[in-house]
């Protein structure tokens, strides 16, 4: 019994220490990450950009998270933008897309250099969660600024994004997403 209590105390201490160390460490952050997606259609290409992706990478435990508001995506055609929000993404119900995961490779992001990494975690779009592994290129500069580039594909049906019954634009089943973001240590 006494042993168990000691164990519990020990474990609690361990957890506390972990949380403490995490709180003290600096984290790479951005709130102006660029994210865009592209889909070629016979009539009009669908091409949207947002420069308001917020993201964080913790160099200590190599955790990464990203978030973008769906209605921050800008289209050239404002009507398309409205349809995208209203009919496809239902952004009043599901206002954001998120990713939260861990970098698999054992890289030290506090050292300048180029790193090709894979990030495994949960991608949530349109309220539907998917486990994904995404390839990313990370460049850490001498002044400890981090630049991340990533390309990945999103299948519409994976996230239950329905293409409406009557639509003149044939929308591709798979959308190519590009991310390009500069992080600062905070």
């Amino acid at each position, binding site marked *: 019994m006494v042993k168990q209590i000691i164990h519990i105390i020990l474990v609690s201490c361990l957890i506390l220490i972990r949380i403490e160390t995490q709180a003290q460490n600096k984290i790479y952050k951005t709130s102006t990450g660029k994210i865009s997606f592209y889909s070629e259609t016979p009539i*009009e290409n669908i091409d949207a950009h947002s420069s308001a992706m*917020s993201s964080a990478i913790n160099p200590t435990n190599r955790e990464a998270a990203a978030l973008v508001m769906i*209605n921050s995506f800008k289209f050239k*055609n*404002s009507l398309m933008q409205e349809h995208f*929000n209203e*009919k496809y993404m239902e952004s009043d119900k599901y206002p954001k897309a998120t990713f939260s995961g861990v970098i698999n490779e054992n890289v030290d992001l506090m050292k300048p250099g180029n790193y090709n990494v894979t990030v495994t975690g949960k991608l949530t779009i349109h309220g539907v969660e998917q486990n994904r592994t995404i390839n990313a290129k990370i460049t850490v500069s001498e002044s400890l600024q981090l630049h991340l580039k990533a390309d990945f594909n999103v299948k519409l049906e994976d996230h239950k994004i329905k293409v409406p019954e*009557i639509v*003149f634009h044939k929308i591709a089943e798979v959308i190519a997403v590009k991310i390009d973001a500069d992080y600062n240590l905070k």
Partner: protein
Amino acid sequence: MKKFVFVILILNISVKLLAQEDLLNSLENEQPQSKQLVFASFKGTRLINLHTIETLGKGSLDFRISHRFSDFSTGASNLWGLDGPATIRLGFDYSVSDRFTIGIGRSSYGKLADGFLKYRILRQTMDNSMPVSLTGLVTMNLSLGKDPNKTVLGVDKYEKFSSRIAYMYQLMIARKFNEKLTLQISPTLIHYNLVMNLNDKNDILALGISGRYKITRSISLTGEYIFRINNYTPDQSDLYHNSASIGMDLETGGHVFQVFVTNSFAINEVQFIPYTTSRWDKGQIRLGFNVSRVFAVSRSAKDQKDKIKGEKKW
């Protein structure tokens, strides 16, 4: 001891998960708490005959074709009005900014050219700090026809150019109650420089009530009714009737296709609000449709940057 190791492992894993969630949560907490604007109160910038509070995004050019067939009551030989005579309006709307639209058009009925300025004054927000959207509209209308009675009477009523002009001023107040239902009221003032009939008044007051109800993602039911408020002509209730229409919006990507039945033959407000002569109860209704195609004319990267930074927020 095994148990102990297992417990530590489990706890570590859960702490790790917790931390990941924390990283995401910290991002969510740092999101700027900007006011989210309500969008897509209506599918288009027109409902049936009336304007809606909607304007298109900056740099959009909207080409519109509005078409009304003849009465159903003309019977089978006239294919229930589809043989015509029909009336048509062609128009271009251009969005100078996200709030400000200018437009021109030409109706076949009465050879009427029109130009308008439309400005979004207020926008409804998601958090209800602004419960309604408010849009103002001013139109100027120009009759381009010849005076048909000139040879008979020897007087040209269009001798002065200003006699060809009529104006309309309209405020639109709309609220999107939920994803499906939007209602709008439109107090309207119409001014004719030269009255239509001898004993008419120059000014006509009216109140439009319109609404839409979304059935599916691409289809909405629409309806419109316009009350005429003041007495602007003798025998007003016998000669002229309130304009009433029901229809549906079909939206197909870059187009909005609106199809409806209405008792108004004319398409321009200064004509159909005061001078609709057909009645629903006599079957004098007609099929009509509006087609709109939106082209993106210009939207520079700089605009997009400015938009993201956020401007006036309601």
